[in-house]
């Protein structure tokens, strides 16, 4: 028995239709903790270089962490990971909710799905009973529709992760959906699940999670909880959720607007968190064990649908970035993406790109199935979302992601295809935020914000500085947040409520019985970061600095409007940021981890 863990690994071979259980390797738990730590180690060790992301050899890893399912604020995250069909590199994406807790109550820390099923199936887990079941009745259904139907069939106490038609049709940025509106959205983890013809994972468990010292665990958990409940920021985060960031981000000039042409959207009246709260929010919806429910469950009368959100990122990409100024229209676009099972960030980003291409005359109605695209046209955005999910007409091109779409459209459009490493950039315009730009450049799944939300540091110390401390802050954040992803926890309690990270040290000791310092935990996070980097190095011949560059728009076009008007980070400064970052990481000038660094982190199995 491993304290803090479910204790078992479930390996599912979809080609053969077989299921195998084994004990969780205690060395894996010691060296990689859980969550994305498990995922990175398994994918690096078990995938051979060059496997087809949509083929039999790719694996989908579903991982809980040592705090998942426990009374620790925010212990509701589940990691999904695979080799990405969107980027060809390492991918993991996490989702809040109830799934990892339920996995552990059933006794599992890990589910590894291998192979490709000959027909649509779903994985049924009820404690020790594990079966692959026929999913023909659910295949083709939207994610919300199918989740409703599965709960009706199996019982409301099953927790379900599933894919929608977008994943079935292999849209490269299909997501894995859970709990009526939450998604592991990024880098195509849902596409991998769809390619395996695995429609859903349904899990229910009733086992207790073993804890080393129950009394101390209760004490620390309660202290963490009390801190969160008493935080000054609690009110606004429960009231507005991430949509509370819409206005500040717009004032920072970082709200992606019209395909990142600007970072400032002029029409914010119906886009604020307060407007959303008053107009459409029905219920505050929390993840497992979270005392600060940032989930806003909404109903839009205008479109007569329920939807969770829109979150900040969705407001950015199905709002300002496509020029839509009304949260109810954003909510409907959000609903469409959720039901069809595609990532709102990538979908909005690629649609915004198509609109800019159309407005610049790079594509015409001949390319768009007769649709005249323009920023602010809600109906046009709804139409494109559906075309993407069904891969109809232009949707078939846009379903491949913005990097590919730029290759097809040509006309210099790759200069403003807003992606890094093939992943569409998420919601922060960064030409006036060097640390944030560096965070995007070096994020280990491609351009995603959640490894290091460094823009707050730019604002704190001065926006212009291209200085070593910015690289240092990015590295620090890239260890803390991914550490939380390995533990199975959320960052909100720390970032937004200000809960001291020190709490995790006694909490982990009480839970696992293993005495680790904060530095010990961060050392593991650094190990994982270097391992995911090494995954890219192995997969991409010639991998290096070139992969870390942002799109040319970010170093050639000064911001045209808003508070950051005229700002730009030159190519020279982009290189300077990378130089400082690589040096501080102990990587070579091309961004490759050195032998010395790998050995220092216990990554002796990674070749130089």
């Amino acid at each position, binding site marked *: 028995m491993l304290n803090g863990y479910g204790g078992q690994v479930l390996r599912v071979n979809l080609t053969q239709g077989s299921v195998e259980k084994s004990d969780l390797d205690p060395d894996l738990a010691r060296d990689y903790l859980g969550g994305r730590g498990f995922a990175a180690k398994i994918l690096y060790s078990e995938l051979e270089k060059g496997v087809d992301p949509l083929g039999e050899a790719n694996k989908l890893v579903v991982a809980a962490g040592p705090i998942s399912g426990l009374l620790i604020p925010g212990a509701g995250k589940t990691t999904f990971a695979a080799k990405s069909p969107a980027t060809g590199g390492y991918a993991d994406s996490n989702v809040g909710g109830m799934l990892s807790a339920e996995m552990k109550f059933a006794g599992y820390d890990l589910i590894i799905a291998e192979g490709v099923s000959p027909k649509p199936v779903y994985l049924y887990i009820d404690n020790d009973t594990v079966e692959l079941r026929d999913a023909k009745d659910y295949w083709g259904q939207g994610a919300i529709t199918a989740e409703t139907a599965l709960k009706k069939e199996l019982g409301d106490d099953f927790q379900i992760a599933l894919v929608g038609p977008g994943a079935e049709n292999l849209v490269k940025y299909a997501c894995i959906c859970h709990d009526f509106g939450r998604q592991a959205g990024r880098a195509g983890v849902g596409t991998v699940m769809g390619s395996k013809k695995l429609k859903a994972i349904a899990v229910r468990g*009733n086992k*207790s999670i073993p*804890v080393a010292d129950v009394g101390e665990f*209760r004490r620390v958990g309660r202290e963490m909880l009390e801190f969160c409940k008493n935080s000054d920021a609690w009110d606004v985060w429960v009231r507005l959720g991430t949509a509370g960031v819409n206005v500040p981000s717009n004032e920072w000039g970082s709200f992606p607007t019209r395909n990142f042409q600007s970072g400032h959207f002029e029409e914010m009246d119906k886009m604020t968190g307060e407007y959303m709260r008053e107009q459409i929010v*029905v219920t505050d*919806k929390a993840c497992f*064990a979270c005392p*600060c429910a940032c989930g806003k469950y909404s109903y839009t009368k205008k479109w007569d649908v*329920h939807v969770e959100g829109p979150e900040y990122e969705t407001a950015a990409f199905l709002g300002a970035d496509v020029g839509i100024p009304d949260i109810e229209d954003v909510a409907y676009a959000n609903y469409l993406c959720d039901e069809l099972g595609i990532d709102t960030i990538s979908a909005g980003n690629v649609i915004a790109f198509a609109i800019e291409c159309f407005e610049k005359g790079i594509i015409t109605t001949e390319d768009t199935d007769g649709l005249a695209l323009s920023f602010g046209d809600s109906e046009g955005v709804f139409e494109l979302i559906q075309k993407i999910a069904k891969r109809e007409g232009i949707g078939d091109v846009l379903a491949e992601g913005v990097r590919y779409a730029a290759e097809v459209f040509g006309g210099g459009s790759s200069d403003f295809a807003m992606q890094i490493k093939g992943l569409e950039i998420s919601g922060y315009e960064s030409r006036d935020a060097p640390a944030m730009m560096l965070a995007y450049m070096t994020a280990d799944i491609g351009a995603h914000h959640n490894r290091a939300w460094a823009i707050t540091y730019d604002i704190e110390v001065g926006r212009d500085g291209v200085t070593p401390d910015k690289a240092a802050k990015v590295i620090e954040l890239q260890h803390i947040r991914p550490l939380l992803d390995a533990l199975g926890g959320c960052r909100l309690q720390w970032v937004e409520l200000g809960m001291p990270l020190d709490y995790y040290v006694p909490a982990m000791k009480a839970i696992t019985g293993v005495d680790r310092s904060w530095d010990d935990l961060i050392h593991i996070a650094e190990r994982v970061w270097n391992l995911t980097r090494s995954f890219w190095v192995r997969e991409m011949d010639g991998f290096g600095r070139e992969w870390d560059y942002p799109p040319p728009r970010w170093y050639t076009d000064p911001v045209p409007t808003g508070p950051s008007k005229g700002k730009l980070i030159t190519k020279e400064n982009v290189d300077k940021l990378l130089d400082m970052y690589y040096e501080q990481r102990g990587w070579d000038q091309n961004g490759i981890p050195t032998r010395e660094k790998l050995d220092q982190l216990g990554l002796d199995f990674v070749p130089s």
Partner: protein
Amino acid sequence: MHLTADSSKCTGCRLCQLACSLYHFQENNPKKSCLAIDPKFPDPGVFEVRTCTQCGECAEVCPVEAIVQNEKGAYYIDSEECTACLECVEVCPENVIFTHPDREAPFQCNLCEACVDFCAYGALSVE
């Protein structure tokens, strides 16, 4: 005295159930708790909380008189006396007498108030 819930404040986080299991059984397991949350999604998108009203119907039907009141007036099942006939579970109008395969006897709210203490949203109280 009984536990009462304002379901409109519930966020479905299950901290109450965790606290309940940790104080009632010293285990981390919301499936061993004495109150229930029913999520109603996708429509209407609300949580409904069920708690023990201390109506006493369980004690009335118990054939071996194993259900008695504690010092707070809460009905509880004396597991020594209980024959696990589960008549109390069936009669409970709120469906808040629970069973678990680890335990022969069912269990119910003993008004320890750990859930009230741990709920961050003020959804639970004792009246």
